């Protein structure tokens, strides 16, 4: 059997087996329900994405079109720049470990392996184009089918360009310092040329001092893009995205020949530039396999190098054993830093955005900006925190056998696992609230004045307990519904039914959290309302305390029940799915 026939058989058999397995799963009600919800979602996205009535181009506004053209051209040129300037000087082809083991020792030529990989890459580009059509096709083009074909050709050409560039870079690197210098000289020349063209265009058409409307901005952009210098820089990108952005079939056919020519030229270039890629492919496959194994062992948050920073506190051998789990998970938070990293990113991005928008108040008027910003973040953490901070059963459940072998009751394990995430989220919230209260407008502010401190105190009590409730719901889901809500193994189940299941569990978690909040809200109202006439604004922290007490009580009862469920959880049954 020749390689093409063997590969066709492999792909066909893999597709068939996967489909049969997914169909067999539909016999179980939970997968059937998931598939129906997933299908409904996809149909909605498809009907919105394709919106066949819009064919003809009249539905796409001129501004959106210009923005789309600029974005696509910018992405294409960025990909070309990255292919030459970023990454290492080695072939970019990557094979899976199975492909290495099965195909490399097989009696096939290197050229045949290269073609196998190119076909896979081009198929990947087509799938990417399909998703782009579904999600942005309607926004940027009035003809989704033309957009799909054009995007497939453009992405395929870029894939071939990246492959060829990696081969050329490998060859140049083999020459030593001269080769590397030659490559960088080429990159520098191209970047300098582009920069000079941009500067000259801007000198010719400076940014208008006053931009009254988006139309004026668009006209300025169009005039800049039409200058000879910038036209030359953008020309390759414009040629590439021409078919995708064609308004009609005639325009598409006119734009097609140059792209087909580019595609063919790149194919020939890849063949001519070909270098031995087996060694790099083997190293890459091993690295990816190692990373996958790490993720599968529950180390999903970060598979890069960890730095053993100092533990949060010294763990003595005496005392309640479950504290060891809290200690371990707080170390995980420090070293994996998923939640904190996201939080910091959030703050930095917010600041950068404000700075970019020219909002100088961020740096001058801290009382009016930093305080409310910290307060908003503290409240947002109540919603986002339980999903972002995952140093609990969601992280540890893939190591269930390790947890089950520990001399701890289910209640101890569940309580301790929940505690680390709750302490982290609650700690962040309290710090943010402290920042907000100290740096915010304060009691002297109009309207807020008398509510400032009572309100702050109420939030300090309420927000961590609401976060705790959210964390509990998410942890309960992985224990009670392991087939619906898989723990963090890093390997996401694929398929329509899995997508539907995820949507359903998201809605379910929200409903359960709201149901848990309801009794707390009612009791807080019952206590706070009468007290308001006596204590005024200070009734707020009292009511918040009542609500927090109810929430903590609910979580405590939940931990008791979940502990029993954890003890009954059968490792083998969960893994059989």
């Amino acid at each position, binding site marked *: 059997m020749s390689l093409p026939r063997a590969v066709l058989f492999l792909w066909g058999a893999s597709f068939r087996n996967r489909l049969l397995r997914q169909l067999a799963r539909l016999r179980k009600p939970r997968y059937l329900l998931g598939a129906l919800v997933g299908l409904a979602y996809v149909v909605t996205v498809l009907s919105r994405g394709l919106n066949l009535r819009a064919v003809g181009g009249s539905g796409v506004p001129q501004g959106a079109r210009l923005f789309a053209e600029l974005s696509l051209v910018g992405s294409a040129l960025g990909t070309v720049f990255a292919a030459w300037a970023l990454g290492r000087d080695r072939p970019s082809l990557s094979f899976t470990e199975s492909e290495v083991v099965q195909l490399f020792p097989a009696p096939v030529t290197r050229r045949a392996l290269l073609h196998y990989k190119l076909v896979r890459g081009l198929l990947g580009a087509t799938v990417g184009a399909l998703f782009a059509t579904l999600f942005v096709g309607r926004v940027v083009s009035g003809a989704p089918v033309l957009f799909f074909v054009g995007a497939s050709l453009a992405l395929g050409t870029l894939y071939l360009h990246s492959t060829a560039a990696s081969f050329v870079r490998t060859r140049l690197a083999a020459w030593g310092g001269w080769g590397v210098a030659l490559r960088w000289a080429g990159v520098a020349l191209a970047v300098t040329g582009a920069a000079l063209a941009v500067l000259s265009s801007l000198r010719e058409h400076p940014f208008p001092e006053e931009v009254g409307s988006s139309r004026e901005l668009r006209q300025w952009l169009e005039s800049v893009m039409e200058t000879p210098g910038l036209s030359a820089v953008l020309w390759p990108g414009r040629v590439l995205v021409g078919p995708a952005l064609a308004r009609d079939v005639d325009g598409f056919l006119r734009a097609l020949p140059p792209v087909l020519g580019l595609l063919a030229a790149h194919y020939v270039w890849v063949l001519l530039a070909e270098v031995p890629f087996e060694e790099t492919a083997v190293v890459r496959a091993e690295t990816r396999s190692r990373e996958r194994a790490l993720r599968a*062992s529950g180390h999903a948050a970060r598979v890069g190098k*960890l730095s053993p920073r100092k533990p949060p506190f010294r763990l003595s*051998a005496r005392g309640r054993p479950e504290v060891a789990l809290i*200690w371990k998970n707080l170390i995980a938070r420090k070293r994996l830093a998923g939640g904190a990293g996201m939080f910091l990113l959030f703050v930095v991005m917010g600041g950068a955005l404000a700075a970019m928008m020219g909002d100088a108040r961020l740096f001058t008027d801290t009382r009016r900006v930093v305080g409310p910003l910290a307060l908003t973040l503290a409240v947002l953490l109540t919603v986002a925190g339980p999903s972002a901070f995952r140093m609990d059963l969601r992280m540890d459940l893939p190591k269930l*056998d390790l947890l089950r072998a520990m*001399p701890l009751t289910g209640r101890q394990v569940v309580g301790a696992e929940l505690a680390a995430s709750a302490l982290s989220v609650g700690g962040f919230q309290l710090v943010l609230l402290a920042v907000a209260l100290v740096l915010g407008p304060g009691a002297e502010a109009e309207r807020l004045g008398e509510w400032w401190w009572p309100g702050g105190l109420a939030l300090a009590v309420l927000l961590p307990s609401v976060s705790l409730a959210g964390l509990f719901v998410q942890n309960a889901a992985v224990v009670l519904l392991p087939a619906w809500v898989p723990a963090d193994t890093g390997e996401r189940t694929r398929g329509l039914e899995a997508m539907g299941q995820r949507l359903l569990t998201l809605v379910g978690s929200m409903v359960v959290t709201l149901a848990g909040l309801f009794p707390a809200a009612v009791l807080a109202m019952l206590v706070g309302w009468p007290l308001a006439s006596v204590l005024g604004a200070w009734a707020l922290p009292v009511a918040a305390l009542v609500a927090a007490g109810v929430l903590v009580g609910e979580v405590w009862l939940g931990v008791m029940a979940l502990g029993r469920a954890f*003890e009954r959880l059968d490792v*083998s049954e969960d893994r*059989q799915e």
Partner: protein
Amino acid sequence: MDSVLRVEGLEKLYGDVKAVRGLSFDVAPGEVLGLVGPNGAGKTSTLRCLAGILPPSAGSVHVAGHDLGRTPVQAKRELAFLPDEPRFFEYLTVWEHLNFTARLYGVEDWEARGRALLEEMELSGKEKSLPGELSRGMKQKLSIACGFLHSPKLILLDEPLTGLDPIGIRRMKASLRRRAEEGAALVLSSHLLPLVEELCHRLLVIAGGRAVALGSLAEIRARLSGPEAEAASLEELFVRITSASEDAAPPATGTRPP
């Protein structure tokens, strides 16, 4: 002397598949019991039930007098389970794994014990290493060091020599022998029949989830008829016993969970 491990009528079902069928046996202090059987015989399922990881479908397990079903925490305090594939928390260092284990089991002199164990396992100098930085053999040694830290009365080992080099294997055998001499009961599952023959006082041969032979090597030999039985090696005995059991009762079908 009372047995450290007492198993009565242990059964484990995965759906319709019976992985373990009515196992009953005792292990005395200082005794090493070898658990052998063909692939899919139910060895790992048995060990995981004994360690309290899998809930048994029927039967009872007593560890140092504690019923694993009724008082699991007390029973687990007395045992250590060393799986064939050591699993760790990737973000804890070697020393922190020992610290963590010490708190779980309340080992107050853990630092002295930990240092001695790391020395014994040739892991000295690796205290600050993360599991991802250790070789397969070193991970196996770390798993053993954590398991031995609280001086368990019962040690359950699933293929304990996987990944160890010849010197490591020799040290490990000596270490296991020493634990047995100090009074710990060991249940050792392995496909390495020479290791089983060398270390174990008694053997439990299982096939298709059932016990097909239990006793010392001499006792098992004596029970088998035929002129060659007396001089037969453990390997030959193993083949004869498991083949006979396969002929007598077909093994459980279905996929064994990982």
